[in-house]
């Protein structure tokens, strides 16, 4: 084995290459814009010179003799006819020009002052680091910029004007790069140090280019198209332009051409060099391909999402992965994922042949890649990979021996990793067991959507197949769905029953009587096999539910409607549901107290099984009973409609009364509010009150068998307010927390009177969705609807970026074995995790309840 020498990097220094450095580093001087000769061989002195490395398989590098992939490539250089500015240093160049005298090129401070600053800078760097030094330099430069007369030669200083990006004027006279370079060359080392330069690695004049370094060919490889034509890299295109213009500039200078032509060419050279570095500078038209597409030059290669860092270094592409649309399947388990056959036959699991499994694995090879369950490749012990085909299959079967590896198709129970972006928390990527199903989409149990924040409106998800034993074991032990039932956010279950499953269990435990046969059929279909408790011919729904509970399970909790009185109405004793209705407070997501208790008692595997069974039972219950929501749910009795009409009329009168008092000037302002604000507050109060009253009225008088009411009472979906909006009154539309007050001058819509403050003119929708809205009401509703839509559309990317920055800042923090939280440098961030050491996923909302622990022990 090769011996490695390990070294630790102490520090990194960035400098600027001088023209000597560029020349020393280079292996070739580029003099011609031509790339290839007639035979297609790279031209000597051209941009594809083989001294810069090779990209053709047949050639060898002239510098190191290496072939393609052996030679990393070498730099070259172009000698520029006239110096040009490196656009990225422009801000520094401007600053320096402002700090030095235009005649003597000394700093615009006295020598004593300069020496004082030099000493200060050395001290600051030593004591407080480079960041602090940079601040001091900025301060010193700020002091110098305002000086108008050189303290050394007494010459008057003019202000420097910048015409972006690279043209500079001093007293209306253009400063050419030659002028600037000449000034910079005269800056003494001592002065340069005060300007923040470390003269060992950079001097001001290095920021003006006389030689341009040419990157190796390997960094800008050309591609050969199908037609045999070569297509060059964007950088090569750009460098070609530079060489061409540079050559013309040389020729014109040598021929003694008029200054104006030379200056034009010089500007053109400056433009090409500028866009070679950065093609996204504002005020510079980007260099384009013939197709009109902008070239991707040096800066664009590095920065932003598609740049080298975020795309190539921080993000990786992987094999053995699949992506497809997801669709729901409540019949598979929470920790399963349904995959199409086509995916199962494309992705593989490497299986090592041993003398115990050789016969089993031979069957896969026999079926080959085209038949399920087959295998796609075999890997010989020497690492050679062989594709299984009709021609090779016979011979490969004979050859098969322990030590070979077979890449077989996926089968049920294989381990996969399932992920949905954005991966915002650890539950966004979990381990699921494979279930091969017909169809073309990935199938996910709808109860497992919450952790991924997935729905089925076209969402796509990624599936990965771990290829090593270690990876599989890790996924199996740490990443399985059941290990993430409890969220580390607050210790409640993130996986639970949803929608129909909640409604079903609610109806089942709310006085449903079933025949014994029916009950047993339902239970068998969800996988329960013991029903000793079901002794009578007619059984209560609670007893059916109890069949899912272990006999030693005790629990006390609240149902949705007992919670406000803190009455523990859901009571389970010795595995029997004695009282209470099961709703989302017991089995729902994020607040399923029953699930939480079950998890504490019986652990993750049993809990997942339990949730699955409860889920199945709920759905079975609805299937048996039938459940729908219809427009008839919003029908109200005639007298109630009248009642609601009266309530609305009363509210309208009350509002008008307030407005009358306001106009008379008799309204008293509330503390801290203007009179107008007080009026608005009073009106809003009245209108909100009437809507709530209508909601209460509907809730009170609602038919218990109304399906919309059932859904809202069970916590499955919706609330009474939604029903009230559909059946009775939509209510006040609010923009930015206020009634609507924008539109025309003095009025919201043209049909309202001037300064109308009444409820209707300010966005109160007195009608219901079912009866239909008036045009003005519809308009107000559309206004607030669009506002909400825009708000979400604008907020999502903002909070996404905020999260990204936060996650990047915190990504290295880790709980170490000594219970401290440390970053990548092992610096202690917290002495105890979360300062209190509580494992939130085991607590209840981040709080440890001592009383509850004692109650548990006493079996209360």
């Amino acid at each position, binding site marked *: 084995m090769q011996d490695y020498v390990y070294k630790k990097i102490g520090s990194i220094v960035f400098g600027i290459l001088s023209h000597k450095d560029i020349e020393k580093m280079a292996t070739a001087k580029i003099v011609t814009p031509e790339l290839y000769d007639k035979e297609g061989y790279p031209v000597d002195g051209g941009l594809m010179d083989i001294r810069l490395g090779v990209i053709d398989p047949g050639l060898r590098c002239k510098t190191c003799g290496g072939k393609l992939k052996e030679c990393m490539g070498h730099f070259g250089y172009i000698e520029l006819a006239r110096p040009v500015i490196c656009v990225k240093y422009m801000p520094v160049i401007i600053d320096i020009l402002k700090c030095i005298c235009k005649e003597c090129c000394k700093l615009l401070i006295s020598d004593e002052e300069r020496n004082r600053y030099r000493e200060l800078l050395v001290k600051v760097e030593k004591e407080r680091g480079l960041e602090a030094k940079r601040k001091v330099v900025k301060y010193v430069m700020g002091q110098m910029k305002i000086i108008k007369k050189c303290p050394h030669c007494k010459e008057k200083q003019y202000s420097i004007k910048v015409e972006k990006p690279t043209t500079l004027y001093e007293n209306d006279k253009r400063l050419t790069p030659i002028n600037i370079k000449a000034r910079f060359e005269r800056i003494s080392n001592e002065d340069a140090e005060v300007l923040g330069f470390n003269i060992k690695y950079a001097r001001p004049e290095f920021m003006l280019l006389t030689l341009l370094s040419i990157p190796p060919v390997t960094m800008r490889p050309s591609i050969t198209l199908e037609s045999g034509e070569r297509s060059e890299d964007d950088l090569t295109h750009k460098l070609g332009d530079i060489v061409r213009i540079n050559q013309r500039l040389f020729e014109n200078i040598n021929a003694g051409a008029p200054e104006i032509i030379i200056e034009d060419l010089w500007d053109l050279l400056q433009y090409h060099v500028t866009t070679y570095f950065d093609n996204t500078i504002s005020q510079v038209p980007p260099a384009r391909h013939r197709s009109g597409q902008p070239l991707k030059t040096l800066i664009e290669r590095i920065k932003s999402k598609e740049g080298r860092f975020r795309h190539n270094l921080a993000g990786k592409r992987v094999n053995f992965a699949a992506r497809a649309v997801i669709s729901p399947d409540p019949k598979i388990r929470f920790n399963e994922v349904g995959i199409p056959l086509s995916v199962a036959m494309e992705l593989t699991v490497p299986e090592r042949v041993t003398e115990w499994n050789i016969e089993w694995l031979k069957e896969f090879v026999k079926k080959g890649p085209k038949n399920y369950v087959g295998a796609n490749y075999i890997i010989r012990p020497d690492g050679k990979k062989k594709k299984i085909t009709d021609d090779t299959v016979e011979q490969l079967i004979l050859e098969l021996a322990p030590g070979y590896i077979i890449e077989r198709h996926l089968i049920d129970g294989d381990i996969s990793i399932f992920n949905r972006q954005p991966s915002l928390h650890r539950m966004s990527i979990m381990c699921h067991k494979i279930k091969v199903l017909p169809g073309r989409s990935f199938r996910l149990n709808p109860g497992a959507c919450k952790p991924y924040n997935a729905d089925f409106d076209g969402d796509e998800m990624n599936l990965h197949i771990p290829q090593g034993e270690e990876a599989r074991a890790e996924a199996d032990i740490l990443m399985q769905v059941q290990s993430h039932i409890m969220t580390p956010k607050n210790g409640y279950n993130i996986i639970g029953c949803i929608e129909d499953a909640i409604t079903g269990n609610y109806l089942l435990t709310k006085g449903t009587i079933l025949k014994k046969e029916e009950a047993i059929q339902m239970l068998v279909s969800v996988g329960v096999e013991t029903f000793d408790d079901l002794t009578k011919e007619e059984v209560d729904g609670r007893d059916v539910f109890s069949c899912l509970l272990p006999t030693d399970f005790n629990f006390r909790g609240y149902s949705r409607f007992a919670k406000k009185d803190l009455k523990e109405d859901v009571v389970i004793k010795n595995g029997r549901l004695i009282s209470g209705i099961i709703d989302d407070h017991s089995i729902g997501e994020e607040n399923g107290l029953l699930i939480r208790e079950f998890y504490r008692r019986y652990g993750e595997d049993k809990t997942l099984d339990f949730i699955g069974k409860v889920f199945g039972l709920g759905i079975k219950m609805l299937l048996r009973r039938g459940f729908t929501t219809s427009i008839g749910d919003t029908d109200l009795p005639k007298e109630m409609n009248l009642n609601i009409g009266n309530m609305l009329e009363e509210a309208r009168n009350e509002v008008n009364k307030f407005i009358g008092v306001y106009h008379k000037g008799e309204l008293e302002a509330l503390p801290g509010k203007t009179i107008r604000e007080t009026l608005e507050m009073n009106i809003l109060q009245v209108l909100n009150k009437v809507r709530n009253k209508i909601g209460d009225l509907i809730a009170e008088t609602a038919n218990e068998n109304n399906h919309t009411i059932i859904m809202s009472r069970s916590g499955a979906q919706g609330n009474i307010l939604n029903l009230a909006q559909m059946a009775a009154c939509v209510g006040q539309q609010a923009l930015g927390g206020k009634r609507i007050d924008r539109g025309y001058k003095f009025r919201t819509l043209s049909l309202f009177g001037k300064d109308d403050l009444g409820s209707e003119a300010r966005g109160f929708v007195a009608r219901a969705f079912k009866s239909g809205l008036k045009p003005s009401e519809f308009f107000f509703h559309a206004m607030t609807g669009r506002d909400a839509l825009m708000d979400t559309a604008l907020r999502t990317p903002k909070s996404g970026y905020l999260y990204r920055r936060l996650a990047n800042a915190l990504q290295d923090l880790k709980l170490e074995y000594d219970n401290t939280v440390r970053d990548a440098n092992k610096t202690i961030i917290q002495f105890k*995790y979360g300062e209190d*050491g*509580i494992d939130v996923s085991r607590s209840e909302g981040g709080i440890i309840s*001592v009383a509850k*622990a*004692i109650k548990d022990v006493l079996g209360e």
Partner: protein
Amino acid sequence: MADFIENINDEYKDKLPKKILKEFKDEAESKGLNKKQAEEAISLIKQEFDK
């Protein structure tokens, strides 16, 4: 205070926050836990902290 509760409090002095221990002491006394129950309860509480 019962000796065993004091012993438990001493034992868990460095492992659990003071607030939790005080709460435990008060609750355990008011409920009149016996030694075995008290030990069980404290281990339940400890479980909810990081190991």
